[in-house]
């Protein structure tokens, strides 16, 4: 019960970030939070967010919304980390379009070769983690992976905010992004499960093996399914947010004591960025494989030795 309460308070805290960002009195009591707000307001994204916020307020109030309501709505929608997310999306799409425009059978350009390597690796990864036929899910898995990797890495660039690891004052803002990603992944998993197994087999999966134990199995399965997006979101946010925070304090240490400890931490951040994206997508693959494994058993093949995802 306390767990649920803390989840709710985290979500509420993330939603109220703007209200807290506007209240400097609350932040001044608490030095680390004030420092984070200072950092957020000195990123490249902050003036862009402010400008877009004014623009959208003007547009919304000209459409007919009351002015303060329009201002609230655009302040909620156009936070700096949202601008960061849009920047990443547009950058990834533009990169993909540029590479596609110059597509050749034998790639001679370095960029196309690199992208081909990435695509091949991700396709192999999807096949290995889901099992035979896993390539069908490779586009979704690769999209998740590429977005999470770039979102983790952009937090290492000075002047930018990672949409996944961002904390603004005391609010755990990054949970917004990770919950969105986890919900997308889980909805996809269940969509694939219903599509591949059919509705009846999908529901029977929830009922468990001896059918008379269904009253016991159904709640356990439902709680397990609900725990999956929660643990995905918390794990991603906690890892990246914690690492960003450590990096933040080490960078402060650089100014205080001229100790460049943040350099190895940044390199470690490059590694954990890939690792956490791998963990997120590998768990998504394992969830898909968990729903599809009955098909594999008929062919006498297990899903590549991946463990059945525990209901963590």
């Amino acid at each position, binding site marked *: 019960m306390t767990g649920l309460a*803390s989840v709710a*308070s*985290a979500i509420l*805290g993330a939603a109220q970030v703007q209200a807290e960002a506007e209240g400097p009195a609350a932040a001044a*009591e*608490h*030095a*680390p*939070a004030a420092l984070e707000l200072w950092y957020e307001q000195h990123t490249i994204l902050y003036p862009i967010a402010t400008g877009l916020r004014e623009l959208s307020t003007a547009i919304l109030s000209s459409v007919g919304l009351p002015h303060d309501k329009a201002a609230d709505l655009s302040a909620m929608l156009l936070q700096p980390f949202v601008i960061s997310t849009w920047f990443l999306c547009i950058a990834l799409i533009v990169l993909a379009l540029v590479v596609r425009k110059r597509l050749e059978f034998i790639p001679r350009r370095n960029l196309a070769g690199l992208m081909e390597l990435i695509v091949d690796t991700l396709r192999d990864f999807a096949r*290995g*983690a889901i099992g035979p036929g896993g390539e069908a899910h490779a586009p979704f898995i690769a999209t998740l992976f590429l977005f999470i990797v770039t979102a983790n890495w952009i937090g290492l660039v000075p002047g930018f905010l990672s949409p996944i690891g961002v*904390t603004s*004052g*005391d609010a*755990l803002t990054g949970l917004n992004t990770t919950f969105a990603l986890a919900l997308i992944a889980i909805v996809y998993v269940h969509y694939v499960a219903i599509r591949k197994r059919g509705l009846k087999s999908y529901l029977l999966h929830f009922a468990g093996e001896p059918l008379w134990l269904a009253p016991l199995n159904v709640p356990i399965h439902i709680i397990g399914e609900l725990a999956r997006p929660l*643990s995905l979101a*918390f*794990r991603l*946010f*906690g*890892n990246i*947010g*914690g690492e960003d925070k450590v990096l933040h304090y080490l960078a402060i240490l650089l100014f205080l004591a001229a100790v460049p400890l943040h350099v190895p931490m940044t390199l470690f951040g490059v590694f954990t960025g890939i*690792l956490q994206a*791998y*963990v997120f997508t*590998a*768990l998504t693959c*394992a969830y898909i494989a968990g729903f599809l494994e009955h098909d594999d058993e008929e062919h006498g093949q297990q899903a*590549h*030795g*991946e*463990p059945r*995802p*525990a209901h*963590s």
Partner: protein
Amino acid sequence: MEWIYAFLALGTALGVPIAALGVATGQGRAAAAAFESIARQPGATRDIRGALIITLALIESIAIYALLVFFMLQGKVPAIGKAVEALGAK
């Protein structure tokens, strides 16, 4: 009443280390078992590595939950000046 602040500060500081103790032990055991099986069966390295990373991530999430609780509590601990003020007011 100022005892509340003492317990709050203790809980904030000690939550993650206690979780880290258990998680470090668990991850060490998992990694040791995985390395043993890799040494016994080098052919299965790829499968074992994939399983190991997922298992480590699942174990690690416990430490991450403790870290999240730390983030939530961190904002509730008053700054040192304010705490001294509260103690002196008594």
